């Protein structure tokens, strides 16, 4: 059982919130509790990174690949919770235990997902994580989240349906639900349209999570409508799980499956182009981040399509950096937000004078998202670009580079507003000690991954996909 410790611990913390949600009374103290529990979860996930083993007849596998992702998931959850001093402003106090409960449950689902090696367990894990998050979206005060929640559920349900359809094909073609057996069976049919379609349709569920074109429609509305913390969670943690599964499944595809790879390459190119071009005109910070997320889904696909040649390390590294730099921006959003209202680009005006540390966090995160050295975002881009180039996807790399230049405009715009504009009537922003620490932590980590990528990459490199 020790090998399942991260999952078990997450499940236990879920139970704690569940019990708490049954009681009434003041709930403010639940925030530090959640922070402590998620921190412990992170430590436990980190401690059990070297575990290995198989469960349930090979349908659940604990290996370095899955354990690394569990660490990243736990880190993501902790960082999101650590940002949450002001979650009371956004979520009804009465719902706070539920809020933490569902996010923890969602993370549990994703942890199971990255270990799942059977279509059934994949599907169940994915739905577990999805439904938990569906329930969190409408918890925002003022009910602005309702439309977002409806959209999220409908799109999610359709994506799940399509994915099930694809899984049905996979089963029909190979007669098995076990990923390893499917791999064997697919070799014969991968040249046929049926094989390609089965695999692509199966991927739809993850593309939806990753908000990859054309399954991105939910992202801007959900980002805008959900509370800031929920959005920070949706923007980072489920995407980790999605990338893990995409890596596994693309790795599954036989080497000569050109048609299949072309589909992914096309989606990647379209996704980053659409995300960046539409991102140019966004005025709401969270909508902007949604489009930025769509673009980054495209970038990370560069690592995914090259997984056979370069292994999963580039994509994992990219996602690790993505987690940090995205949360950096969300942290700014959370702190700047007044009474849980959305933050526009205008609200960044003169941030440099109002809260220098926040402006720095914003600048480092934005430059990292734009891929400017010496930030981790640059190193992430470098490794996935190199991987894709090596795998022979030069046109895709060129498109990605052009996109990098386009995206610079709106990322730079954020920095520009915070450094070059007058604050006008906007007052000082108070930043608590905890938030300061978090700011410094994110800045240092983003720069560390950009300047000393070696050690981290070494860890990810060992995570060869065991299939």
């Amino acid at each position, binding site marked *: 059982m020790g090998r399942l410790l991260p999952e078990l611990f997450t499940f236990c913390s879920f139970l704690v919130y569940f019990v708490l949600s049954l009681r009434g009374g003041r709930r403010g103290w639940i925030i530090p509790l959640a922070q402590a529990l998620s921190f412990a979860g992170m430590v436990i996930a980190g401690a059990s990174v070297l575990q290995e083993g198989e469960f349930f007849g090979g349908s659940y596998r604990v290996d370095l690949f899955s354990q690394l992702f569990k660490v990243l998931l736990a880190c993501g959850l902790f960082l999101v919770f650590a940002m949450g001093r002001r979650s009371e402003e956004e979520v009804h106090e009465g719902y706070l235990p539920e809020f933490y409960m569902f996010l923890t449950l969602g993370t549990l689902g994703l942890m199971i997902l990255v270990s799942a090696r059977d279509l059934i367990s994949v599907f169940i894990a994915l739905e577990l994580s999805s439904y938990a998050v569906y329930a969190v979206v409408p918890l925002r005060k003022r009910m602005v989240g309702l439309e977002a929640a409806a959209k999220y559920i409908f799109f999610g349900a359709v994506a799940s349906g399509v994915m099930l359809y694809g899984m049905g094909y996979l089963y029909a073609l190979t007669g098995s639900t076990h990923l390893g057996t499917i791999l064997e069976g697919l070799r014969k049919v991968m040249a046929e349209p049926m094989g390609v379609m089965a695999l692509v349709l199966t991927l739809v569920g993850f593309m939806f999570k990753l908000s990859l074109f054309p399954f991105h429609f939910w992202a801007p509305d959900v980002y805008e409508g959900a509370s800031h913390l929920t959005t920070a969670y949706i923007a980072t943690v489920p995407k980790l799980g999605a990338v893990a599964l995409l890596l596994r499944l693309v790795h599954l595809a036989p080497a000569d499956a050109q048609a299949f790879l072309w589909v992914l390459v096309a989606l990647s190119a379209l996704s980053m182009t659409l995300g960046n071009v539409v991102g140019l005109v966004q005025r709401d910070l969270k909508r902007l981040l949604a489009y930025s997320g769509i673009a980054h889904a495209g970038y990370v696909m560069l690592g995914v399509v090259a997984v056979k040649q370069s292994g999963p390390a580039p994509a994992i590294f990219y996602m690790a950096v993505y987690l940090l730099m995205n949360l950096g921006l969300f942290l700014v959003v959370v702190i700047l937000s007044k009474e849980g209202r959305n933050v526009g680009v205008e609200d960044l005006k003169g941030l*440099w004078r109002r809260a220098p540390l926040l402006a720095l966090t914003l600048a480092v995160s934005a*430059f990292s998202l734009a891929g400017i050295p010496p930030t981790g975002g640059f190193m992430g881009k470098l490794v996935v670009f*190199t991987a894709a*180039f090596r795998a022979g996807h030069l046109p895709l*790399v060129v498109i990605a580079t052009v996109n990098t230049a386009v995206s610079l405009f709106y990322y*730079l715009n954020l920095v520009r507003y915070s*450094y*070059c504009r007058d604050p006008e009537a906007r007052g000082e922003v108070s930043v608590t000690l905890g938030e300061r620490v978090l700011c410094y932590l994110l800045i240092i980590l983003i720069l560390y991954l950009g300047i000393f*990528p070696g050690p981290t990459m070494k860890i990810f490199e060992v995570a060869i996909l065991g299939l």
Partner: protein
Amino acid sequence: MELQLVPNSLPYPILSTVTFLPLAGALLLILLEREEWIKAVALTATLLNFFLALPLLFAFDPEVLGFQFVETSSWFPFLKARYALGVDGISMPLVMLTVFLSPLCVLCSWRAIEQRVKEFMFCLLLMETAMVGVFASLDFVLFYIFWEAMLIPMYLLIAVWGGPRKDYASIKFFIYTLVGSVFLLVAIIALYLHNGTFSIPEALFRDYSFGFQYWVFLAFAIAFAIKVPMFPFHTWLPAAHVEAPTAGSVFLASVLLKMGTYGFMRFSLGITPRASIHFAPVMVFLSLVAIIYAGFVCLGQEDMKRLIAYSSVAHMGFVTLGIFSFTLWGFKGALFQMLNHGVTTGALFLMVGIIYERTHSRLIEDNSGLGKVMPLYVAFLGLFCFSSFAFPGTNNFVGELFVLLGAFEMKRTVGLLVVPGAVLAAAYMLRLLKRITWRERGQQRPLRDLCPREVLYLLPLAVAVIWVGLAPKGLTAVMEPTLRALLEALKTHP
């Protein structure tokens, strides 16, 4: 051609020190609160760096064909990217130029920057690290990081402490240069996949196919041409210069622009020699256009800073012309002009900064007739203006002469076409000098002549102008073997 890599034999890792000492200084600034301390630390860091860098000049062995003071260690094994620093006859003088100018930039900002001194000095020191790093890197990833990392502090220097149109100028600068360099990244990855390493020495002088060279050259050329900037990519430069604070302008003109020409010299010639020869006519043509067009534009300028900015375009035209003449004279002239332009134009920007602090105007009109009021100022200005249009006895004369010799050696028509450009330079510079010095001055408030601090930072530049002008031999000796070897490699390569 086999390049030697001579490890550093000095008692301290000189290139790492020179690269990262300013960064250490910058980090130290974070802890300080008092303005005097901040300025003092910044000045000490840059000065100390200059003195620590001096052994580069004195212990440099010109006869080594390859890189010296080399330091390597493992850095990012996944991409086989190493931490590797080293200099040769091309990059060593540029490193020296950078460390020479940095303390002057700190000094010139002593009074001019009133707000956010800490952040300003932080950016300056960061710039120094990035600039030295660009010239000293022997690994493409490292090079690219420094190359791009420099954008952020430079952007902030313009955007935060700049003039009225800083917003426009800074964003234009950033986007222009970044767009140029994204393709550089693709070319670097292509080279990596071809060579299996990001090492720069290993990428030089290899047999790449012409098709490969063709594309790599184009990707490189866009990045470097924007940085230089060559006509028609030059429009970001006047905007950035006019709005940047004095120290920013000096760094921009004196060092940043050199990164483009350094790139041409190091990478375009060394990695894509055949494509360089193939594209040389285009490059020569663009250089000529830059020289003549910018010369005419200068004639019409009313803003001193704008005038000097456009004159930079013309001067850099000389540099690219020298590089793509493929003659030893041309190469020497180009490298000389890179250094000379750094000294002279940097000095001219300092002069503008000084007068701007007093009159709060950069218009020639508002600053005319200073001859009587500020004799010392006008004396320095005169020297630098003369140097700028390559008056014999000043540093630029040597460089321009070499470039002209190279141009004539390459093709007589090209040489003849450059001459009007040189004459134009005299015309616009003398026009500037005449109006600043001799016009009648109306009933304006009295102006203070140079204070000792200002003399202190102008004097080294003035000495450099005359010293290089009269005794260029020391510099030639440093750079000639490297350039000769480069030319040799170009000629022998198919």
